[in-house]
């Protein structure tokens, strides 16, 4: 499963980082505490958060995450979108709340035997 499959399956908005839409997705991580993500997220995961700060992109890129999904209709800050384009790590968005998005992703990942 790649990032663009998630966009199609869940009707996500692709805000930025479109060069990274073919990144492989190997799981997910949900947290709004960026230090926690730095410490515990793993390469290839999609990160579900409501934080829109530029540091989100620095950490997503550092951890080599597949993509970031912003919940509740949030979009990335301008400088975050710019960094996402430069690094090729997509920022996606949904109007769902985190609980709902995580639940749907979890089901889909189980189904595709990613988890």
């Amino acid at each position, binding site marked *: 499963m790649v990032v663009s499959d998630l966009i199609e399956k869940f009707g996500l908005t692709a805000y930025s980082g479109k060069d990274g839409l073919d990144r492989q997705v190997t799981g997910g991580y949900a947290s709004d505490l*960026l*230090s926690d993500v730095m410490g515990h997220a793993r390469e290839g995961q999609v990160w579900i958060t409501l934080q829109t*700060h530029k*540091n989100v992109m620095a950490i997503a890129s550092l951890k080599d995450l597949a993509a970031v999904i912003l919940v509740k209709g949030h979009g990335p*800050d301008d400088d975050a979108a710019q960094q996402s384009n430069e690094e090729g790590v997509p920022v996606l968005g949904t109007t769902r709340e985190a609980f709902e998005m995580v639940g749907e992703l979890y089901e889909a990942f189980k189904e595709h035997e990613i988890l």
Partner: protein
Amino acid sequence: MKLLRNMKYYKADMHLHTALSPCGSLDMGPQNLVRHAVEAGLDMIAVTDHNSGRQCRSVARVASDQGLSVLCGVEVNTREEVHCLAYFPSFRELDAFDRLLYGQLADIPNDPDKFGYQVVVDEQEQIVDYPQKLLISSVDMGVDEVEQAVHRLGGLFIPAHIDRLRNGIIAQLGFIPPGLKCDALEISRHSNVETLVREHPYLADYSFLRGSDAHHPEDIGRGGTRFQLADLTWREICMALEGTGERKMELL
């Protein structure tokens, strides 16, 4: 820190709450707060309630009678739930910032039974107002926007208790955004700068200060900053934060 000629030491508590903060004790009215600060041997206190500067005036009036200086400020809770101290040169800038913050504060009413009372009191400790919105909510401004707003008003911007897991900038944002213009960083009394810099080497580029973050009278002055200045003025404090003109500060 060796005292240089023509300089004096000034002991300051750079972070404390009053009865206006819902989590602050009702004993933190101006009279009691100032009495404890004087007893703790402080020359200056920074009044930094959550998202509001409305208690600074009455504290400053009571303090001036006692020879205690007051730095007027706020502890902002940003959109990312990062706590940041902001200090202002006078009430004019403080009031402008206060209005900005209250407008951006989430419209959640305070429930005193759950969060505590938040009261503005006068010099005689009579309640003159109680802001409706819950002051410990976050404002709808990112940390960078807050920093810019503080600096536009000529204030000082200092991420609070950066060593703390709860609401410290490093916990919330992973690291201090390189473009964020911090005039200093505040570290709580539970950590020391050497250990923190060993863990995060980039912090060596910043200057540090400390406050008690007191919410109760007995905690005032438990953790502070000793300044070395020619005089206790806004300009001198700015110089100490910049580390210019041999103005200095060290943590207590």
